[in-house]
Every structure is written in C-alpha cells, then in structure tokens.
C-alpha cells in the first residue's frame, strides 16, 4: 500500500454458490464480483454506478466484511463503516435513537461512563443536524430523512476514516436528498473522511463523486474522474447509461450522448456471456467481442476503459 491511499482493492473476486436439489449441493456459481481493482485517496468520494445485478452492492459489503472475498485483497487504513439504503429497515424499531447510537460507542470506546455516553450521543446528533432531544425517540416517529441522519450518526460513532454509502438517498424525496448529500459532503471535509458511494443515480454521481467507476456484470468497464467520464464516455455501455438519464432541462439534454437505447436487459449473473459480457446488448459489437474479454486499458491519464473499440486499434 502506497503511503497516500486509504483503500486499495486488488483483483477482488466474489462468487456465490448456487445451491439446489435435494442435498442443496452447489451446482453453479454467481460471479457477483469478478476481478475488481481500484484505489481511493484520502477525502475522496469514489463512485460506483451500474444497474442492479452489476455487483456494486456486493463490493460495498465485501469492504466492510459482511462477505468474505473468494479471492483478492482489500487493504485499508483506520476504521470502516457503512450506511445502508433503507433507513426504515436498518434501524431497530424497538430501540430509541440514543440506544442505537450508544451501542457502537460502547464497543469502540470502552470504559465510557453513562454521562459521557449521553454527551457523545448528543454530539453525534448535533453533528448530523438533529436536535439532541431526538435521543429519546423511536425510529417510527422520525421522517425518512431524519432516520437516514441517525444512520449516518451511527456510522460516525466509531470514528471511521472510510464510509461505504450504499444508495444513501434512493429511498428519499429529491428535496430531502439534497439536504442529506450536503450533510455527507460537509462531514467529509470536517472529519477528513473518504467515501465509497454506491448509486444508480448518475446525475447524483456527477455532482458528488470525484472518481466514478461503471460496473457491468461484476466488472469495472470504465473508470475516470467524474467530469471526464461524463464529458467523454468511452465505453458503449457508459454511453447508453448516460443517454438513458431523464433530465429536467434543455441545457442538460445537450450534455447527454445522442439517444440510443439498448435491446433487452442485463443478463443473469448466472450466465455471463462469453468474451465481453456486454456484447449481447452492445450496439457496436464486433466479432472479437464474442470471444475475448477486453482488459482495462488506459486511454487518457486516469481514464481507463475495457472495450475492444479502444486501444489496440492501430495494430489490427
């Protein structure tokens, strides 16, 4: 690990066995994450986009240790925490906000007195812009946005350096989403945090992430600084994704690649196509794509893409 990075993920692989039949024998595997490598710098927001089934949430769960990798390594500095998508189900409905926040505090800071605990809980709530009196409330009396703030406070309780945000705002209204994202970014600057932001909302990614990686069927197909990725999408899949975003103004319309739609849906991760996994839906698929899986190639400094359309063009 280089001295500057907070997270290095190297050739991460996660296969899930598919069990079935009378003896529940494994008779196949889902290649959820298939050789993913990336690094995250301090105070950076690393974005991971992709459709459902692309493996982005699996990566988040692998990072915090909810799954064990099949192979590959994850190296990080400091503590890591996670904020889940649905605050309604990630908070215990029978536990007050205060109790929810005390638990990680007791685990990570042993020997705090009750008074100190209460004080720390109040601090955490203030940090996420909630009234400290909320400590006595149950999750059901909070709105969606407030619940997500509590979930963020809980993640902060153990003083992490790195937080995995798995679709932190997709269950919320846009007007609330803006506030939560603002809070997340302010906390990042205040506490010198780094984030892995998992989302399917590309417009959100454009505004929040420093670097964005696009995933398709367990692999990163393109990775670049966010502004570069949106200005010069190189992979046909990225172009299709960008063209599909519904936008709210004419100016934004001009920023999208020209409209193209793909046929069909993302294939099942049980049967990943041979060669380039996108070739079954790709508008520009060539013969080679059905046979050879493309490697990630650097086309610009910091901009990598895994596609046969780029790279070895000069040779053939």
């Amino acid at each position, binding site marked *: 690990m280089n001295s500057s990075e907070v997270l290095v993920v190297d050739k991460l692989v996660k296969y899930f066995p598919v069990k079935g039949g009378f003896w529940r024998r494994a008779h196949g595997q889902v290649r959820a994450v298939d050789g993913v490598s990336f690094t995250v710098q301090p105070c950076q927001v690393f974005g991971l986009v992709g*459709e*459902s089934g692309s493996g982005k949430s699996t990566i988040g769960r692998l990072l915090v240790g909810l799954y064990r990798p099949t192979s590959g390594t994850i190296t990080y500095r400091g503590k890591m925490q996670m904020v889940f998508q649905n605050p309604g189900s990630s908070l215990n409905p029978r536990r007050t906000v205060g109790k929810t926040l005390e638990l990680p505090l007791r685990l990570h800071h042993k020997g705090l007195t009750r008074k100190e605990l209460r004080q720390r809980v109040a601090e955490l709530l203030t940090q996420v812009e909630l009234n400290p009196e909320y400590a006595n409330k149950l999750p059901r009396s909070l*709105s*969606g*946005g407030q619940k997500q703030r509590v979930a963020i406070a809980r993640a902060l309780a153990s003083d992490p350096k790195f937080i995995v945000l798995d679709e932190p705002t997709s269950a919320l*209204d*846009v*007007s*609330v*989403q*803006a*506030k939560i*994202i*603002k809070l997340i970014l302010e906390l990042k600057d205040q506490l010198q945090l780094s984030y892995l932001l998992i989302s*399917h*909302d*590309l*417009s*959100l990614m*454009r*505004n*929040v992430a420093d670097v964005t990686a696009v995933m398709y069927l367990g692999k990163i197909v393109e990775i670049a600084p*966010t*502004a570069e990725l*949106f200005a010069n999408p190189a992979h046909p899949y990225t172009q*299709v*994704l960008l*063209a*599909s*975003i*519904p*936008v*709210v*103004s*004419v*100016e*934004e319309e001009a*920023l*999208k690649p020209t409209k193209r*739609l*793909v046929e069909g*849906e*993302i294939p099942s991760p049980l049967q990943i196509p041979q060669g380039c996994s996108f070739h079954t839906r790709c508008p520009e698929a060539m013969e080679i794509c059905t046979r050879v899986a493309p490697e990630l190639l650097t086309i610009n400094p910091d901009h990598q893409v895994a596609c046969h359309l780029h790279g070895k063009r000069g040779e053939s």
Partner: protein
Amino acid sequence: MTLTYKQLLEIKDLTVDFDRFGGKARVLNRVNLAVAKGEKVGVVGETGCGKSVTMKAVMNLLPTRRVTVGGSIFYKGRDLLTLDRFARRQITGKEVVMIFQDPMTSLNPVFTIGQQMEDIIGYNLAGAKRGLRLPKRLRQEAREQAARFLAAVKLADPERILNSYPFQLSGGMRQRVLIALALANQPDLIIADEPGTALDVTTQAQILELMDQLVQERGIALLMITHNLGVVRETTDRVYVMYAGTVVETAATDALFAEPLHPYTKGLLDSVPKLHGQGLSAGIEGSVPDYLQMNPGCRFYPRCPQALPKCEFEPPEPRSISENHMVSCHLIG
C-alpha cells in the same frame, strides 16, 4: 347515451377527508385536474402530497369507511361519484385502467401469466359477467388475444411467457406484462403510478419509450404519477405539481420546466442533481406537514423561502398566468 364533453377526465374540486384518531385530515383540498382525449399528463410532487390518493379516488380504490369524498370526477361527461358501484365498475378497470408501481407485487405469484391474462380478457369477452368460468371457445380466443398483446409490448416469444410464472420473468418483462394487461381492455385512459421507478435506467428508458409509442398509436390518454421530474419532462404534454393535497401549479410541460413560478416547483426542480455538475442545491427546508395540523393559509407557507405575512392565513386562489398556466401563490399576480 352519449354526452358531449370537452375533457375525457375532469376532476372538479375534489376533496378527500380521512377520519383519523386525532381528527379529520383533509388529504385532498379542492383538486382540479383534466385530461383530454389522447393527452399525456403528468402529476408530480413529493411522497405524501396526495398524488396517489387522487388516482385512487378516480379508480374507486379508497377505503369506504372513515373516508369522505367531495366534489366531482367527470369521465366522458358523467360524474363517477354519483354512479352506483356496478355502473362504476363498467368504467374503472375497463375504460380507465391503472398500472401500479411495483411490477414485482402486482402479479399473482401462483398463476401463470397466461392464466392471469386469460381471466381478465375473458371476463370482458364474456360481457363482464360475474364469475370467471369461461367456455372453452372463449378461453381459446382470450389466449390468442393475450399473445397478441404480449407481442404488442415487444416481448419475444409470447407463448413461452404465457406459460411462465411471474418469478421466472425479469422486472422489465413483468412491467411489460402489466402494460399488456392494461392494454387488453382497450382503455381510453391509462393511469400509471410511478412506471419504471423499480427498474434500472436503461430498462426504464425502454419502458417509457414503449408506453409513449403505444398510447400514441392507439390514441389512449395517459395520466402519469411520479416523483421523477426528468421522466415527466421527457414523456408528458402537460403537468400538474401537487403539494400537501393541493395543485399548486399546472402548465404545459415545456413551459413549466423552462419557467417554474411557484416556489415549491422551483425548489423541487432545484433539488434535482443536474448533469452539468455545478454542485447540489440546498433542497427545500422541512418536510411535508402533518395533515392534522395543516397551515390554514397556503399549505406551503411553513417551508416557503419567500413567504409573505398573508400566506399564513389566506389560502391562495389559482390564477391564470397564460393559457394553460395556472399558479396558486400570493407572490404571483
């Protein structure tokens, strides 16, 4: 009986009260909304602002106990609220159909797609008689029609799909099946509740394009409820913005997105992350208020950044700004 009517669906001063433990909650407050024949209309707003309640009132899906519905809902010139439930059932579910949000839960998991489609198509082939036992001849015909509708929503291999159970299909395919089911009765109006929100962007784009094409071809009117402003802009002709049970602004879609007038509409549009990436806006302060403690004046008053003193006590009346553009706000006019 033929009546002359201008609008296909016209909701006039619709008011819905829920009897709650703590008192009466006015969930819809004098909602006016109209859809012309073949028109595509969007309704947007946050969660809990009354979009779905309005549609449920049209479809007669609101609970009958502890709910009071006032005003009128004209469909082809007839007030649905004055019809008895049998007459109403000839319209809702047949001429007016609804596509629900979640394609995962709107299909029955223990019947094949074929069985479910045959029942619905056969019910109407048999003249909407009660009871679902169909003569063999009709069942055959229903199945053929079902296959045709599946082909119309561009599902490859309709025969295989008719024989599959919902869990064997992907989200996008299920959503297509629901659209096929909605088309099966040859409706005049389709009400779509958040179509495609449960789907991925690429699939959502496909579904919206398909719906657009189908309603265009068949001259079906579309009333789309969604909180996704981008989807509304790309698919509808006219749009209503709802807040806390009231329509705060309505205009032609292009006009509304180019020049929103109501502070709520502005705030909502501002909150959407933009593709040019110049950072995020601050959003709108607070959240949708408790219906039991609604501000007596403008319902947006507690959250409005530009509120005037009179907004607290005086509810704003809708004002016409130009043809088709109406706003309910004291700041305007």
